[in-house]
């Protein structure tokens, strides 16, 4: 009786070792991150970007809806009237100050949902780590000029 159980245990252990041995023959599933590109899905929400129209005008009209919609208060907008001769945005107003505090943002996407002109979008940049807390406040200049040219993402 005891011997039978002993042998049964041994075969079960053998089975478990078989599973791992099978895995040894498989190709690793690792993505070699810095070398290979990371597979990202189109809806992924990363670092914020402010978009422009094709003619170079800023999309943001300074309505502050994003600021109101943000669950954590990570966006700060100050708006001003456009100069009629040299308008910054096609609307009546534009944003003089547009800042995102990355260390409060939960990347929920409510700002892009709230924006009526699709000016703010969450891009695909996830490599945001840095050394100093002050570097995490994205100013308007940075938001308008992300590393790569403005991509049209998610006009859903």
């Amino acid at each position, binding site marked *: 009786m005891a011997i039978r159980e002993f042998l049964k245990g041994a075969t079960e252990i053998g089975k478990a070792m078989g599973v791992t041995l099978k895995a040894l023959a498989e190709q690793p599933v*690792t993505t070699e*991150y*810095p070398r290979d590109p990371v597979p990202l899905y189109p809806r992924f929400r990363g670092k914020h970007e402010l978009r422009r129209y094709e003619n170079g005008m800023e999309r943001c009209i300074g309505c502050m809806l994003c600021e109101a919609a943000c669950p954590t208060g990570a966006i700060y907008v100050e708006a001003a009237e456009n100069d009629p001769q040299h308008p910054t945005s096609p609307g009546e107003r534009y944003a003089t100050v547009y800042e995102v505090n990355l260390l409060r943002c939960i990347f929920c996407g409510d700002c892009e949902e709230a924006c009526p002109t699709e000016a703010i979008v969450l891009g695909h940049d996830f490599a*945001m*780590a840095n*050394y*100093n807390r002050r570097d*995490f406040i994205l100013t308007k200049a940075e938001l308008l000029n992300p590393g790569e040219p403005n991509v049209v993402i998610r006009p859903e």
Partner: protein
Amino acid sequence: MGLEEKLPEGILTTQLETLVNWSRENSTWPLLFGLACCAIEMIATGSARHDISRYGSELFRASPRQADLMIVSGRVSNKMAPVIKRLHDQMSEPKWVIAMGICASAGGPFNNYAIVQGVDKIIPVDVYVPGCPPRPESLLYALDRLRAKQGKETFRTYVDFKAPPLSKQPDEISSLESLRRPQLA
């Protein structure tokens, strides 16, 4: 510190520095220590898909005495803060801290009575990682930034560190560093 305090200055030291920094870059053992959501992504970073072991960092040590890197992964409550401070004190130099996620970096969405608004109020932080929680690749990138920082450190002057030009130039890390690394005479 260990041996390096007793070494003379000179070319040999520079060479040795390079070697030591290289070894520290490639053998940063994190403390097995998770707090909240980010801990799950930290575990995911160790999992087969992202594989932190490529950096030689898969040996998560449970004892702070054997760890080099503390990844503060998640929100730090007021009750937890003294514990984290103590764990950091128990780690032996040289030690680094990554504040993973926005809760650890600045309190994140939990802007309330219970959460310490940024772990840097308790311990000095080397790299902050935004994201809620950051993707595993984000943490790997932070590890890369940390490696860049480790590579620039010297035995004599930990203070004069300037970050390499990656995406943007950080300010001079002055006060924070001087708090942590005693300046040698």
